[in-house]
Structure formats: C-alpha cells, structure tokens
C-alpha cells in the first residue's frame, strides 16, 4: 500500500525544486515524511532501481529518479531487467496488470 508513498516522493522530487533541495540537504528527514516499508525505503536509499521497478513504481516516475541518481539511460533499462532477475516479476501497480488480468 505504501507504493503510493514511494511514488509520491519520486513525483515530488521530479517536479518540485524545494523537495529536490531537501533531498540534497537532508535526505533522511525528507524520507521520514513518506511512510514506507523497510524494503521500499532501502530501495529508495541505495538506490535499488530494479527493486523499485519490481515493487511497482511507474517507469514514467522511475526513469527520472534513476537519472537523478546518476543512471545513464541504458544502465536504467538494465537495472530493471536485473531487478526482475533478482527479485522476480513486478508485484504491484500498472505493470502487474497482465498477471492480474490472467487471474
């Protein structure tokens, strides 16, 4: 359920200069405002871009967070592929739709 918080944090980081400044100055304080599971907060901190993808973060948000954390485009794509290899298929969100549809 806290996938919402993870995505909200990334959304704000992508669009809001004030949030970006707080990320640079005190990331931990910023993180405390977004309730998330231990696994989610670890994935955000490291960052584990592949795990964030598996947890269900939308790519239209995630690609900008990956860029913020220094991932060139091809490395971003490879990080998601590696995430699926390590953590299994996408668990929630839009990209879990096929699995849900197929019951």
């Amino acid at each position, binding site marked *: 359920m806290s996938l919402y918080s993870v995505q909200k944090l990334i959304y704000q980081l*992508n669009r809001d200069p004030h949030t970006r400044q707080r990320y640079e100055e005190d990331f931990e304080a910023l993180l405390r405002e977004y309730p998330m599971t231990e696994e989610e907060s670890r994935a955000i901190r490291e960052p584990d871009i592949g795990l964030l993808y598996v947890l269900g973060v939308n790519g*239209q948000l995630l690609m900008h967070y990956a860029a913020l954390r220094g991932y060139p485009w091809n490395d971003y794509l490879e990080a*998601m592929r590696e995430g699926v290899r390590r953590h299994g298929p996408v668990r929630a969100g839009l*990209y879990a739709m096929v699995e849900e549809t197929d019951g």
Partner: protein
Amino acid sequence: MSLVFAGVCSHAPGITGRADRVEPERLARLHAAYDRMREAIEAAEPDALLVVGAEHFANFFMNNMPAYCIGMADGFEGPIEDPDWLAIPRTTIPGNAELARRLIERVLEHVDVAYAEEWKFDHGIMVPLNFLTPRYDLPVIPANINCQGPPLTPVHRSYAFGEALGRACDAVPERIALIGTGGISHWPATPDSGKINEDWDRAFLDRLVANDRDALLSYNDADTYREGGQGGFEIRTFIAVAGAVGGAKGEIWHYDPVPDFAVGCTVGVMATA
C-alpha cells in the same frame, strides 16, 4: 469558428533526447514530417494551438487525478525534465487564459473537465512544440487525458471529449489548431523499452484515418496493454482528435517504428470538417 487544423503526432522524449542514436537520414524523414505539419499549421493562421496530450506525472498524480483537464493560464514553463536529458532548453510558452476559459465553459456544456491555472509542460507537449512552434510564439492551450494512472477514462469518453472540444472551438471566433499527441504501441521506461507492435499500430492508424468511430471505440485496456503496452493507453489522445473533427477522415504522413525512440514515430493530419 471551426478548427483550422487538426493532426496527430508522437512525443517520445527519445526523439529529441536520444536523437544521436538514429541514422541521420531516418531522423531527417521524421523531422521533415514535423516540418510539414508546422507549415500546415502556419498556413492555417491559428490564434492558438490546442494540444491534447497525455502527461507523465508532471502536474497530476494519484492524490488528485483528473480524467480530463484543460490549462487556463497566460504562460507555461517547460520542459519540467532535465533540459539536457530532453535536449530541449527550458523556456516560457505563451498561453491564453481568457480564450481557455471560454473553451472550458463550452466544453462543460457536454462533458465534465477539470481546469488548472498552473501547468508545467513535460516532454509530452514540449517535443511536439519543439518542432511545431520552435519560436514559442503561438499561444498554447494544453488539455490532458489521464493515460498513466489507472483507472483511466474509457476510450468512448475520449471521443466524446474530442467532440466537446470541437464544438467549443466552433463556438468561439478564434482560429484554433488542434493536435493530439501520444504513442500507439510502446513500452516506455520499462525493460521492454524499444518494443513496438507495428501491426497493431498500423491497424489502429487505419481505423483513425478512416475515422471509423465504432472500430476506434472497440479498444479496451486489457487488450491494449497486451498488444500495445502501457504506452498504448495514449491512443486516447488520437481518438479525441478523431472526435473533434466531426467524423472527417485523415492521412498519415509519416510512420516509422524506431526502437531507439521507443515508439512508432507518427505524424498525420485529420481533415477538418
């Protein structure tokens, strides 16, 4: 008065941001198609450009997600993304709040739409503007259809939204050009980035240019996701343009599936009734 121009085009960020990955001749053909559209828009002498887009969490998020929204401001900033990533410098784009307000009032006679007096353009609008109004000298009125965060509006509502936009443009004295911008099949920003279902794209474009309303409205999201990826949800923007032109038919000027741009690059025109 009636729309003076209506068209559809792609907006993938790779078109500008990763342009160096595609051979120059291939890129030149796409640029020529955008140029042709720019010239057609200029020849129509519009007072404003109405852009039906599908933004990607630049302004709207799941805390308060409008199915449809129209921007009502005298200016907009863009791109919201890193300008180096998109290879489009950050700039200010003129709007027309007063005209937008009159259009919104007319649209509300037929369908419900949200409005926004703040709006930052992402690649979904900036990539088309980069080619179509490169001097940023034509007032832009942005309209958005939520194609990113389900639940999404059904495609028949997008057609109805387009019909309402067309009627609204008919009712004001200004000359308005309309473009819809989205992808057909694509899997952007996912491990499948670069995958394109050309057959599915061409079947959709055939239905679009024929303005085959029943065929266009037969798309559902489960099928679209399977055949066209989550990016395929953006067909709503093209379907809205089909609705806006009162059943008029169209022509595709350019279609080229470019894996490095992660989309079948499309430029086409819908004749205005």
